[in-house]
């Protein structure tokens, strides 16, 4: 089980200070009994997640649909009130801020959504859309100067300044995603949560946007939390990667270590299931096939949440909730058999 990462590579940029630390974050949703009867239930969308991101780095976040990636991002963005745990951004615990402090933080943490169609207001021009956050946050108080800044932002993301007068429906999907990126940049953030920023785009446009995000990161020294399904794209863009399964972190480490030597059986299965775009290779590739169904967050399995699908599970896995242990420097895994 190894993914070729065998050519020498430049080491990741000298790591900056820790910009964000998520400590034991939990977010539970309470569902009323309601529609189909039955007792009220709790969805443990995020269940004890911890990780940190250094300034200027990209942390990839992957995992099955519904494993809690978006909810984690929304807690960091203060769009959800966490049930427990801490979100420490630039040294301050966001769960304990005053409203005035929250305003400042809102400006520093921005988001790029998956769906460029529904995340833009159809009745605002692109220019108004970019102007608004700057006005609200008082970033460029003078109106004229803001117009210049709008044109500059459009240029930075590879659009024509004249697009300021257009409406979202007049743009293509890729162009709308560029507007979404420009809007995130408008408040001069230091951290951007990219929640599947390329999943809704054509394959031929995805590479354009990934390159743009990388160029902007260099230019403005941005930090990214990059949520995605596509493990090849995540490998391309991330410095480190966290793999989630059912509300928990299964494994987190450097990109190189994760792809070359994944330790958690779920990560191993994920990587071995990624099809390689080459029929020659695919025709004699051995894969690790997982049985079973991804369980529901409403009724998670006992012990290790992965045990019903795990090829190396033993009796203890049904009982013991594995803690996330550092098995090598910087490589943390939640599995009692590792």
């Amino acid at each position, binding site marked *: 089980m190894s993914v070729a990462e065998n050519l020498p*590579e430049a080491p990741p940029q000298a790591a900056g200070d820790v910009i964000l630390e998520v400590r034991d974050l939990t977010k539970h949703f309470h569902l009323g009994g309601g529609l189909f009867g039955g007792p009220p239930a709790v969805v443990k969308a995020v269940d004890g997640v911890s990780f940190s991101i250094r300034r200027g780095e990209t942390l990839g976040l992957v995992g099955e649909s519904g494993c809690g990636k978006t909810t984690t991002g929304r807690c960091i963005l203060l769009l959800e009130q966490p049930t427990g745990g801490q979100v420490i951004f630039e040294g301050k615990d966001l769960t304990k801020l005053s409203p005035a402090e929250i305003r400042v933080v809102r400006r520093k943490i921005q988001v790029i959504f998956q769906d460029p169609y529904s995340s833009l207001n159809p009745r605002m021009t692109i220019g108004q859309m970019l102007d608004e956050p700057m006005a609200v946050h008082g970033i460029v108080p003078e109106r004229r100067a803001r117009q210049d800044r709008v044109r500059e932002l459009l240029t930075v993301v590879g659009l024509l300044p004249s697009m300021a007068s257009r409406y979202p429906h007049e743009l293509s999907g890729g162009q709308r995603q560029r507007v979404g990126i420009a809007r995130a940049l408008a408040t001069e953030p230091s951290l951007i949560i990219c929640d599947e920023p390329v999943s809704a785009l*054509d394959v031929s446009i995805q590479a354009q946007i990934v390159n743009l995000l990388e160029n902007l990161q260099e230019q403005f020294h941005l930090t990214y939390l990059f949520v995605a399904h596509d493990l*090849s794209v995540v490998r391309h863009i991330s410095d480190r990667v966290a793999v989630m399964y059912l509300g928990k972190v299964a494994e987190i480490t450097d990109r190189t270590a994760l792809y070359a030597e994944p330790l958690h059986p779920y990560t191993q299965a994920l990587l071995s299931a990624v099809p390689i*775009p080459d029929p020659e*290779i695919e025709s004699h590739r051995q894969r690790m096939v997982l049985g079973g169904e991804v369980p529901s967050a409403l009724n998670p399995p006992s012990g290790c949440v992965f045990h019903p699908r795990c090829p190396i599970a033993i009796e203890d896995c049904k009982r013991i909730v594995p803690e996330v242990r550092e098995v090598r420097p910087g490589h943390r895994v939640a599995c009692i058999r590792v």
Partner: protein
Amino acid sequence: MTDVAADTLLDVRDLRTEFATSHGVVRAVDGVSWDVRAGETVALVGESGCGKSVSALSIMGLVARPAGRVVGGEIWFKGRDLLKLSEDEMRDIRGREIAMVFQEPMTSLNPVLTVGRQITEACEIHLGYTPTQAHARAVEVLGFVGIPDGARRLKQYPHQFSGGMRQRLMIAIALSCRPDLILADEPTTALDVTIQAQILDLMKDLSRQFGTANLIITHNLGVVARYADRVNVMYAGKIVERGTAREIYANPRHPYTLGLLRSVPRLDEPKRARLDPIQGQPPDLTRLPPGCAFAPRCAFAIDRCRAEVPPLTSVGGAHQSACWVADSLPGVAAKPVAEQVPA
């Protein structure tokens, strides 16, 4: 016209499907020909909006009317031109001989019918099964798609199934009447790759076991490489390249195919500093340029490309490309030695 191989199951010839919209006529499928042989898996790949789903819907006789209309061509299936059949005759074929797995499972499952009823109904209508026989068949096909405990599952409703299970349920319904051909439209989009592999392995198994033919519509080039025998690459309503999967990946002869293959990062190759995207934007089908629809984005375009539509012609045996400079294109980026392959 290419001659028809003896085991050709579906033969689509010069299909044209249009939509009347407020911006003008959209030629969603613009003179497309392709075929599927018994037991084979054929892939249809291409940009969003290039006409893949509309191609499949045209075969099923399900193009949204009145805006949409098949305006030309023939669809030969087991000796009959489907475009000449009545709605009643099509209803017998749909589900029974050709089954479709739709792009979004939740919209094509009936939320108020039990899972069991959605399978047994088709078996009773199409195969003339008694309720008991139909029930047994339903349990059996759920087993095929890896949903255990079928008897209990049949009493549930679609919303009680997870996303991956609904996808499999769609495939179970498609299989239930033993169709000759399954049209699967993005059957695994948005699923975890481990579930994706489970579902596609299953479809491949069934074609080995029962000779079912599959048409897989996808934009995932990895999926195509793993599962397809032959590939049709579409761009703006037309097929721009086709061939065996090996021909297309090892020796792409259309700049769009080449661009797609070069733009995706690959787990088996070293990380690149930057990706190598196709420049420009996907085309607006109501305002296509006069010559080759790819010309505005094409790095290899010559004057002729902007004036004349390139025909689909052979670049070696059955490998075809619609490009004026097909013979002088470079290969897929030189790869750094034969690499160690992920196990």
